[in-house]
């Protein structure tokens, strides 16, 4: 049944999907968060996502920390410095996960005598999305905040990623995978392009475990969000689709199984805001 539903996915909403493929050591692949990431240019999920973003700093901080693989100070002494900066950056400005990771990459392991760490940024972040307009928005933003030399932009379908096998350290997608028609294909493609040892991470709306919280969340989703969509964006239907598509997406454990079926190992998830969103992680070994 889920496959049938997947077949209906509104392709316009798939425009929100973005794959950032990154060659940076500590992985950074992130889907582009719409609206606030790219100002008012991106349409769509701002309203639905904002609730998730209210746990915003925690969410992004957790995500970035997850990707870097460990707590501050655990791996290399210099990493601690990197983490500190990332946290401050998060608190001081908005930005997509990709942008934040790019900044993190820029300041990773500064060496003495470095005039401008950006010039020596190791690794590369590739943002891949099926929608050229979204990529353009991202490009403009990257230029504006001085990360143009770290990120490259590629048009492509997450179900058929235009890159070779075993070429990336990390692959991430945020708030995009539920808009893809064939989620299993996206997972298989992510597995394919990752190097052995590479990590896949997915941030997506998920199932709220607590029944009271779930009821409140559902009431807000179905009663309020489409109304806000109509009043603020002249568009009831897209926001109705949004809240429905969230419910259509498999719950956390089922999505973990889907990741395992694609070949990922060490698969686990972490809930945010009681399950409103969840970060799933898996490795290619």
């Amino acid at each position, binding site marked *: *049944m889920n496959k*049938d*539903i997947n*077949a*209906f996915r*509104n392709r316009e909403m798939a425009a929100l999907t973005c794959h950032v493929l990154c060659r940076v050591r500590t992985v950074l692949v992130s889907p582009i968060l719409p609206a606030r990431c790219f100002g008012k240019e991106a349409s769509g999920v701002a309203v639905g996502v904002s609730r998730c973003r209210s746990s915003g700093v925690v969410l992004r901080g957790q995500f970035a920390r997850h990707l870097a693989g460990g707590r501050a100070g655990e791996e290399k002494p210099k990493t601690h410095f990197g983490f500190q900066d990332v946290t401050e950056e998060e608190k001081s400005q908005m930005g997509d996960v990709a942008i934040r990771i790019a900044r993190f990459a820029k300041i990773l392991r500064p060496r003495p005598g470095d005039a401008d760490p950006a010039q020596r940024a190791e690794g590369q972040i590739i943002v891949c999305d099926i929608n050229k307009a979204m990529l353009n928005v991202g490009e403009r933003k990257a230029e504006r905040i001085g990360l143009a030399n770290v990120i490259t932009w590629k048009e492509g379908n997450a179900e058929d990623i235009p890159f070779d096998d075993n070429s990336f350290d990390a692959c991430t997608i945020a708030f995009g995978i539920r808009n893809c028609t064939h989620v299993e294909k996206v997972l298989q493609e992510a597995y394919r392009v990752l190097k052995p040892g590479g990590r896949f991470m997915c941030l997506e709306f998920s*199932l709220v475990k607590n029944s009271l919280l*779930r*009821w409140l969340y*559902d*009431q807000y*989703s*179905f*009663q*309020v969000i*489409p*109304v*806000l969509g*109509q*009043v*603020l964006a*002249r568009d*009831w*239907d897209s926001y*109705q*689709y949004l*809240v*429905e598509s969230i*419910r*259509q997406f*498999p*719950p956390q454990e089922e999505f973990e199984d889907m990741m395992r079926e694609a070949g990922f190992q060490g698969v686990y998830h972490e809930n945010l805001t009681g399950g409103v969103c969840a970060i799933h992680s898996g490795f290619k070994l």
Partner: protein
Amino acid sequence: MDFVLAVAQNAPGRGRMFVRQLVQSDSHQDAAEQTESPEEELYPGHIRTTPLQKALLGVGSTLMALYSPARDDMVAVNGEVTGMLALPWMHRKMLEDAEGQQILREKPKLNSYTVDLDALRSLPEGTLGRAYTQFLDVNGVSPDTRLPVRFVDDPELAYVMQRYREAHDLMHTVLGMNTKLVGEVAVKWVEGLQTGLPMCLGGALMAPIRFRPKQRKDYVTRVLPWALKNGFKGKFILNAYFEKRWSQDLNDFRKEFNIQEPPSA
């Protein structure tokens, strides 16, 4: 699968309904079923809304329409959502009139596809049809800009609302009012008093706040008394089957419906 895709792409609302029927209920999706009433489109474009959603839409659309008058869709939504008591009254007024009954039976639509505007332009001066096209041309408006009704939960009442919306320009014509602010307020008064729609009455009461002093003077001394008189004394203009009256003399139309001549500028 292709058929299903075609349904989904061509009729988003119905596609959703179709999807919903395919979906097996599990705890994840139960919530959607419980919080939303079963999705049934009573007419194309219909969106079922709960009382809470209607309340939120009413408040939201009022605030947004005041904040940004260019949001004509907010005025439309507001009319639909707040007109729940007015629409049955309008419907009854149409049922009690022979011509109104005919309109309800045949449910004509008023737009540039159903009405031959060029033919109307060539009608003799002083006819309803000629005056209507003159109004459209002088004020730069088109009959095609009326939004479809979406939030009324009854197909008959939805038609009444749609007819009211499509006949707005004809109201202007019959009353002889232009689309400037004072003219719009005058039309809103007549519409509001005849239909009982809160959106019209609310708009007529709130919009004068934006008048400049000269407009306000003109409004208070000349336009408002005339508009109120027509609103109270005039016959229900929506009972006019306009499509059959294009060649009627406008003055005769006004006499028939007890509409006073518009005050001279």
